[in-house]
């Protein structure tokens, strides 16, 4: 994309590349662990669930 300054103005909004978090899954995972604990199941206090974010490439960083 090659634009003049004016062109950029006119072309706003251009979407930003972003790092997407699995936020819904964080909630589901936490709720699942909590329910297990409330139901008397053993969940170790050092238990950790790590969710991997995802890079979503948009207009702000398309390779030139």
């Amino acid at each position: 994309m090659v634009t003049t300054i004016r062109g950029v103005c006119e072309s706003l909004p251009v979407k930003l590349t972003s790092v997407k978090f699995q936020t819904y899954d964080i909630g589901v995972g936490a709720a699942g662990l909590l329910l297990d604990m409330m139901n008397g199941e053993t969940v170790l206090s050092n238990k950790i669930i790590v969710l991997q974010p995802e890079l979503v490439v948009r207009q702000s960083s398309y390779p030139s």
Partner: protein
Amino acid sequence: MEEYGYRYMEVKHKLIEQIKLLEPHVRLPSRNALAKQYNAARTTIERSISELIGEGYLYAKDGSGTYVSGERAASAAHMPRSAFRSVGLIIPDIRHDTYPGILRGVEDIMNRHDINLVICNTDNQTEKQAGYLNKMIDLGIHGLIIVPAIIGHTDLNLFGKLRDAGTPIVFCNRGIEGVEAPKVVSNNFYGAYAAVKHLIGNGCKNIAYISRPAYSTSYERYQGYTSALAEAGMNLDDRLVLFEPTFDTERPGYDSATQLLESGVTPDGIFCFNDGIAKGGLRSAWRERVDRRQGRSRRWLRQYGGFARACRSS
């Protein structure tokens, strides 16, 4: 699916009401009889019963059926009419960042298990968080999911009280030093690393990081940033790294980006901590670009999070 979930909850409610009327150790009618009684599918009955066993209302004896639990009946006697459980969700702000998604995930699961959800916004203030924790303790909450507040001093005694009361806690996003509880977190290191590596792959040589103030998450992302640079054999330039002075700056990203652009080193890529900073940074970078109308500056804005707007020109 929706209908199935609703139907199953309805059956479970009715079963709980029925169980309350029964003496401990009385045998529950057969699944088939219950299916007929409630005009429900046998799978619906089975799912309800299996959860009621898990929740301590019932117990199964090998081969001879399902019985009303003594313990639960006794404890239910001095419980409010509704035996439904409540859990707390303490988050910084329901409107922002990762929190709407987290809330929705928690709520969907709690709804499926017929558990009330109490939602508290701390604005990241530990003082406000302490107030809510006290309320939760007074309320006799059955469990707690918490994204810990980061501004101020955390009173560990309150967590001790929750532990003593046997209230399970799960942390989201980050934990609290000195409180042992399971955690569900995002790999902040990896997110930052992947983003910066992507910019490097695009040919960026001077990549800036504009961050929220220093705390666990911003450090993890900073480490990802430095790792991607190190892997590419690029030097870290301190002038390109800015941690915002406070969490409640009036114009997040804007002043930092302005400072950055005036620092003498021109970034050709910017990695922003989150939406707010990306928006502010963009405005600032945009202004700078307009000022240099004739210049050949090019800016790549990167946002860590959601859906802010950016522009790019060359």
